[in-house]
């Protein structure tokens, strides 16, 4: 067993060849791989716009691109990263691959709908890329009216339709997970034996299913106003632009939790596995995911404190926004308690997990600054806000995604990547990230507004730091492409359970067979019990 690990003869990757066997597959694992490729392309496309932004901001003058072009850069960066990378990232790739085996199912409840969701994502992406190729859009990713309805003469309609369409991909994924988790669990897999990754995806799915339709109808209203000249938000005919903001943030604030909650689920798996300890306070961690999902729906107006909403509703929303910190803190404290006296090792996924804990902490606590009414007046629409949400979305969600990808890569491909290279990349990402975004807290606090292509000279040092950090961060994201692709051919064979982890997914072969399990597994133990794990030998390069 030690020296002769071999790939299984047939697995989901070689069960059927040719393009049609992929494009017409109903296998959740193949769909996950296609999502992985698609969102990676989108990620690097969105990253290109970030490069443009940071190049422009390296100098105080607007000398690299025009102000109009800069508006298009940050809009396209936001639209692509939010709707086409972050929202599908963990659920559509890792969730699609792992939710069925983690609960002992052969597939999601609706495999054809799962494939449909991928096609819908592609169609939405085509609309957005078409808009990009024919001149882009400059409204900001929030599409605020009246500018988006009557002011902007860029491609608002195709982008809005692209986001509208991609939303249904997200809805269908969420719907599929909810039904799968309710109806497809293996015998003995009770709710409180499910991995916390699955709980996190259940909570995320609730947000996707309840929130996304609202942004869909908001886009429809924007569409009829822009395309047909209807009056819904138009202030000249008595409409209320603030209504648009309410409806938009009713989805788009919970959307932040669509991005971060699955990463919290990944974190629970990583922390437990690499400290070889049962997760501390399992049910608290499970319910805190649901609590974040519920609280997430009643805090949206904290994006609108300076938009002219009433003082009393602002006070209520401020208070409720603070309350989100409670379930978030429950998670961080429980992970810390899990680490306590654990047998901790520092493989690459764990490095990302540590990075996540620190960055999520800073991102979360600076969120409290912004939830404070008086403070928000000062910080609203400054780089402080930009830094805050990048700490959550990049420092949190993408760190979680990268950690998860490195953790389950041997399961998905059957092979190990270079441990040395991947540790270097993880450290580069952490250093580069902090160098990019920490200065933005300061420059924002000092008063630099977001969304301008020029700024006063005294902000240059901090902005140069930020641009320098961005190039380190970019390197940290490019390296994995190289060593992960390299591992596909040359990587050492991983075996079923290279990390000695406890979940059901590690009982499948790596890569798993199309049916996941030859026989439906019967679960008779609690989650995260490492004494039952047949020590799969660690097999690192």
């Amino acid at each position: 067993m030690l020296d002769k690990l071999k790939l299984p003869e047939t697995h989901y990757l070689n069960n059927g060849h040719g393009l049609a066997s992929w494009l017409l597959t109903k296998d959740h694992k193949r769909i996950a791989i296609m999502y992985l490729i698609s969102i990676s392309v989108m990620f690097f496309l969105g990253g290109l716009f970030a490069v443009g932004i940071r190049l422009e901001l390296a100098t105080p003058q607007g000398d690299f691109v025009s102000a109009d072009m800069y508006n298009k850069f940050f809009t396209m960066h936001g639209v692509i990263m939010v709707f086409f990378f972050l929202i599908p990232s963990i659920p559509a790739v890792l969730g699609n691959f792992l939710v069925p085996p983690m609960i002992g199912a052969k597939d999601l409840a609706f495999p054809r709908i799962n494939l449909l969701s991928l096609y819908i994502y592609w169609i939405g992406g085509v609309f957005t890329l078409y808009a990009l190729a024919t001149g882009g859009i400059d409204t900001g990713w929030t599409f605020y009216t009246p500018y988006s309805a009557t002011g902007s003469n860029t491609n608002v309609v195709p982008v809005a339709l692209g986001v509208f369409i991609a939303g249904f991909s997200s809805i269908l994924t969420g719907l599929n997970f909810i039904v799968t988790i309710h109806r497809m669990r293996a015998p003995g897999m009770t709710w409180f034996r499910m991995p916390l990754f699955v709980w996190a995806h259940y909570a995320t799915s609730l947000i996707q299913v309840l929130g996304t339709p609202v942004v869909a109808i908001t886009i429809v209203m924007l569409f009829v106003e822009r395309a047909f000249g209807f009056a819904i938000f138009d202030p000249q005919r008595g409409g209320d632009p603030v209504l648009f903001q309410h409806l938009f943030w009713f989805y788009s604030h919970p959307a932040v939790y669509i991005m971060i909650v699955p990463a919290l689920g990944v974190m629970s798996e990583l922390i437990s596995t690499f400290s070889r300890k049962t997760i501390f306070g399992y049910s608290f961690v499970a319910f805190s995911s649901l609590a974040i999902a519920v609280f997430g729906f009643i805090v949206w107006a904290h994006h609108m404190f300076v938009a002219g909403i009433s003082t009393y509703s602002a006070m209520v929303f401020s208070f409720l926004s603070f309350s989100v910190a409670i379930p978030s803190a429950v998670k961080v404290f429980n992970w810390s308690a899990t680490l306590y006296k654990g047998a901790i090792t520092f493989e690459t996924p764990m490095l990302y997990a540590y990075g996540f804990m620190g960055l999520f902490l800073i991102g979360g606590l600076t969120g409290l600054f912004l939830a404070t009414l008086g403070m928000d007046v000062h910080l609203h629409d400054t780089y402080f806000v930009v830094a805050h949400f990048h700490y959550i979305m990049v420092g949190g969600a993408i760190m979680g995604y990268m950690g998860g990808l490195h953790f389950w890569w041997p399961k998905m491909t059957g092979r190990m990547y270079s441990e040395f290279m991947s540790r270097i990349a993880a450290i580069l990402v952490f250093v580069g990230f902090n160098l990019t975004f920490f200065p933005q807290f300061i420059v924002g606090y000092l008063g630099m507004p977001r969304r301008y292509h020029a700024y006063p000279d005294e902000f240059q040092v901090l902005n140069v730091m930020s641009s320098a950090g961005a190039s380190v961060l970019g390197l940290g994201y490019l390296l994995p492409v190289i060593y992960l692709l390299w591992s596909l051919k040359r990587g050492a064979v991983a075996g079923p359970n290279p990390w000695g982890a406890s979940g059901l997914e590690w009982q499948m072969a790596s890569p798993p067979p199309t049916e996941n399990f030859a026989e439906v597994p019967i679960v008779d133990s609690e989650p995260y019990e490492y004494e039952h794990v047949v020590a799969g030998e660690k097999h690192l390069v």
Partner: protein
Amino acid sequence: MSNAVAHAQQGHGHAHAAHHPELRHHFDTMPQQKEAAVLGMWVFLLTEILFFGGLFVAYILYRTWYFDAFAEASRSIAIFWGALNTAVLILSSLTMALAVRSAQTNKRNALVGWLIITMILGAVFLGVKVIEYKEKFEHHHVPGASFVWAHEGAEGGAEAQTEANAAAGEHRQLSMTPDELQRTTQIFFSLYFTMTGLHALHMIVGIVLMTVITIMAYRGKFDAEYYTPVEMSGLYWHFVDIVWIFLFPLLYLVERHT
């Protein structure tokens, strides 16, 4: 891999001697498969409620702000057609329920028949909607550049309207000037067209869906053990009906008692 399907039943105690041909490989039993479909459909309908919900929120806000405009604009919609369509849709819900019942009791011809009647009623609804929309176009009641709000009973143009309004109008004292009405009634009609338009779109999807189901039913795909698609289409159809049950009073009956 191939043997995995055959052994999938182990340890469940539900193993049947022969599988129903419609049992998908990743489910163990027909009841499990049906429960999954039913739950999935209800979750989908939940998303539909939130989808229409955004429009209802906008309606509530603007109706509160511009009640007079909503009342005036609502009076210009023909109550007869709306009431007729309400009756047609309620009837179609009944025929849809009878179709599901026919599937449960293995009556294939009755199933096909009720489905066809349901589709015809749906088509009648859409036909009436076309008549109503055409009327709106002819009266310039479609919001946008060519929108003209003419106060009913004051046919003499904008000047006459002002006089009519000054003379307290036919119905009641209006708190809005004709200019304000010209602007804010557009909000009502924007919501009217968006809401009824999306509803009509859902009806069209329903009819397409039901065409497929009818062909499947005609070919004998369904029996008492497997009629999930019929039931799912029924849930969808009833949902679309219920949306109309809300739209009718909100759009046609804003203030009809005077």
